[in-house]
């Protein structure tokens, strides 16, 4: 998943191992622990490794995504041009900006989940045709929960999971803990095949293969971890 070779200075590859395609990974933790940075890293390492990616920007718009990634020297534009990344931006329209869709960037609305799924359908088809292995990122559920009834958000998650796993993609979904009633968080946990928890100091990984953990920090080159056990 992360390049497990000598050039992988992050060690994330060792911690996470290889995640089978068709699985949903839930990345959760309190606010501001580096979950979005993990998403940028997951996106970028996939693109570098030839795995196209569907990216749903739900907490920020495309422009901010590009800016934040640039701080780590990860440049998104070339991949947007080549169509290897398919971005669905559901917040920028809230700013009152009227932008049209382009081939690799679509705009939807945080409160129109049916429209979001339509674009996810088109995106998965486009990426599936490019590569048998692709990634999908949804960062994050926070605004989606603020703008929609929580039950509907869970329904979206089930449909999203079906769509991504059917197309053999690896789907990463980010959730900020403590923002919704416990029963909804429980349901989210149940939907996930693979769980990653960030708590500010350590990463806990849980899957059918067992549990692992490591210490982590955010560097100029992204998230690095050590002390894997």
């Amino acid at each position, binding site marked *: 998943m992360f390049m497990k070779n000598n050039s992988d200075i992050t060690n994330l590859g060792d911690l996470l191992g290889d995640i089978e395609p068709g699985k949903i990974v839930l990345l959760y933790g309190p606010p501001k622990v580096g979950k979005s940075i993990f998403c940028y890293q997951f996106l970028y390492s996939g693109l570098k490794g030839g795995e196209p990616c569907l990216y749903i920007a739900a907490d920020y*718009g495309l422009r901010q995504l590009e800016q934040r990634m640039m*701080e780590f020297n990860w440049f998104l534009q070339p991949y947007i041009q080549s169509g290897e990344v398919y971005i669905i931006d559901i917040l*920028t329209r809230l*700013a*009152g900006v009227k932008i049209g869709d382009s081939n690799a960037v679509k705009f939807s609305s*945080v409160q129109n989940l049916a429209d979001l799924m339509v674009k996810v359908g088109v995106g998965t088809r486009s990426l599936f045709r490019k590569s048998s292995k692709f990634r999908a990122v949804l960062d994050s559920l926070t605004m989606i929960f*603020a703008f929609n009834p929580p039950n509907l958000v869970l329904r979206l998650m089930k449909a999203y999971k079906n769509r991504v796993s059917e197309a053999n993609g690896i789907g990463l979904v980010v959730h*900020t803990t*403590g*923002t919704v009633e416990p029963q909804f968080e429980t349901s989210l946990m149940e939907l996930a095949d693979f769980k990653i928890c960030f708590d500010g100091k350590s990463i806990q990984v849980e899957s059918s293969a067992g549990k692992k953990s490591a210490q982590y920090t955010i560097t100029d080159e992204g998230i690095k971890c050590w002390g894997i056990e």
Partner: protein
Amino acid sequence: MIVRISSGIPGLDKLIGGGGGSLAENTVTLIYGPPKVGKSIFSYQFAYEGLVNDEPCLYVSTDYGLKDLERNVANFGWKVEEYVGSENFYLIDAISTISGVEVSSTLNYFPSSVYNPTDIMVKLGVAIRQIKSKSPRFRSVLDSLTTLMAFNDELLVVRVLTIYIMRIKESGGTAIVTYTEGSADSKVENMLKAIVDNIIHLDGENLTVEAMVGSGKLKAHYNITSSGIVVD
């Protein structure tokens, strides 16, 4: 590279950015903590720093109306004319009308109401349009979220905040929003922390940078002096 703007708080810029500004441009910072720790003072200083450098400021005030703002600012020895009456200071006063005071709007002064976040958003739109035609960058303050949540559904305020943030960023602004710790439901408080880019906590003694784009956690002691907040 991250462009940082000066916060107007002596000592803070050195703490975060090594002297070259602290708050990342085009971001939104949450200033929170218990009551009476200097959150509003932080806001005045932040606005003032921009105004003396000819940067417009869009100030949304829910606790202090025009008269109170003038008084508070004067108490710290800052020139009131830099604020009120300055072409660059745009005030959305969401409190004065509540007490029945008759106020009329001018080019830069927009009376509104804490009971009506929709109206605040309308005035915000008007103000941003005017500012954009003058300047590619500006500052904004929303003081405070707590008062808005006292008068409206908390999740509605979260949604309004989201739109405020998107609009400010889209127009080139850098904003701070204030919030009294523990004043809303904990789930809402967590959402607030997730929605903003940076978080600074004040507790009366220490200022903690809990999150800041491109920077790690930092902590320092601060005082409220006769000329505002000073960080050691």
